């Protein structure tokens, strides 16, 4: 029996599908060019110390972007406020969903982030948040474990698996480019006590190989360039 839903595309439908794909691709390429262009011409002038603000997802427990845990390496604080760029934020949110198993949060985050850093949040399952932070500054010195094994890590970056003695359930990886720009992936609730409402007893885990492939993607290039140049 042939399934009634299994009817192939007509030539017209095929043509329309291809055209929509091309238009969508052009739109995304344009967004990336804008993000890169912004970074190239951004003039940074101001004083102050930025710090990542608390990231709050609707209906969930708050996730601190700078949680009170003892990571052996952690993002430094940028020294100057950077104008917020929606293109970079959108690029970060889009890339976050390339991480296997990660779904967008109940509401996409588009708030301004101070200090030139950008944060996007999603979920690995119903309760395990995933946060990706894009920062123009390098990680603080420490004794984090450097990842040197495959998959094919880009040579312009150092990859770290960060440890968190206070929160063993939290998984953190970072890509630190030679110019200091970093991407950090954090999976888990971290500092929150396990008797907190909405806190899972056994948080979902993510495969480190998947995270490394994700961080190695050459799609990070324009975004890292953008935050780095703006700094």
């Amino acid at each position: 029996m042939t399934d009634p839903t299994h009817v192939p595309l007509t030539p017209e439908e095929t043509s329309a599908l291809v055209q929509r794909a091309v238009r969508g691709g052009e739109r995304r390429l344009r967004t990336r060019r804008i993000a890169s262009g912004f970074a190239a011409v951004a003039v940074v002038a101001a004083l102050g110390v930025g710090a990542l603000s608390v990231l709050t997802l609707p209906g969930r427990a708050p996730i601190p972007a700078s949680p009170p845990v003892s990571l052996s390496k952690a993002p430094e604080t940028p020294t100057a406020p950077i104008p917020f760029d929606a293109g970079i934020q959108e690029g970060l949110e889009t890339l976050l969903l390339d991480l296997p198993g990660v779904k967008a949060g109940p509401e996409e985050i588009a708030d301004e982030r101070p200090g030139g850093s950008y944060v996007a949040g999603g979920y690995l399952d119903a309760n395990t948040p995933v946060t990706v932070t894009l920062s123009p500054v390098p990680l603080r010195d420490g004794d984090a474990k450097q990842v040197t094994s495959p998959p094919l890590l880009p040579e312009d970056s150092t990859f770290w698996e960060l440890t968190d003695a206070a929160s063993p359930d939290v998984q953190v990886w970072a890509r630190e480019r030679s110019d200091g720009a970093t991407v950090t992936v954090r999976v888990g609730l971290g500092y929150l006590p396990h008797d907190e409402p909405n806190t899972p007893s056994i948080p979902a885990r993510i495969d480190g190989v998947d995270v490394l492939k994700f961080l190695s993607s050459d799609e990070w290039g324009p975004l890292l360039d953008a935050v780095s140049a703006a700094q």
Partner: protein
Amino acid sequence: MGDRDDFEGWARDAAGPLFRHALMLTADRHLAEDLAQETLTKMYIHWPRIDLAAHPLAYAKQTLYRQFVSGRRRRSAAELVTDSFPQLAVPELDVAGSVDLRRALGRLSPTERAVVIARYAEGLPTAEVATLLGRSEAWVRKTASRTLAKIRRSQDLAPDTERRSLA
């Protein structure tokens, strides 16, 4: 390497096979079109870096499967999220059995569905499914085994359906 001017010609040829895979995964014509379109969009973006001698359709299929598993949604699309899954297209099954099986498959997670479709509906070897989903062969074997057990336990399935359809 691909030239974007050549993309449309390739995409017209690839759209049919990609749509067929998408339809098997989503069992919904509109979702399948969305999935195929998103896959082609990604292919368009990466087209200049894709080696045309290295089977771009295989790369596109990998992109499509991973896209499905990641549950990515196009932000501009006004999609209706439901907690039930529509019928899943599995060709060449008897009517009663296929309806039961679709219902049972519809209760699986996207990852489980992708493994079952790739491994059993498409008949791909474990190694190929592992490559397709970016996982290890051990993970595929474990997930396939666990998912089959889950289907067997499904109350949607008539006693003989699973044996006839998935054995």
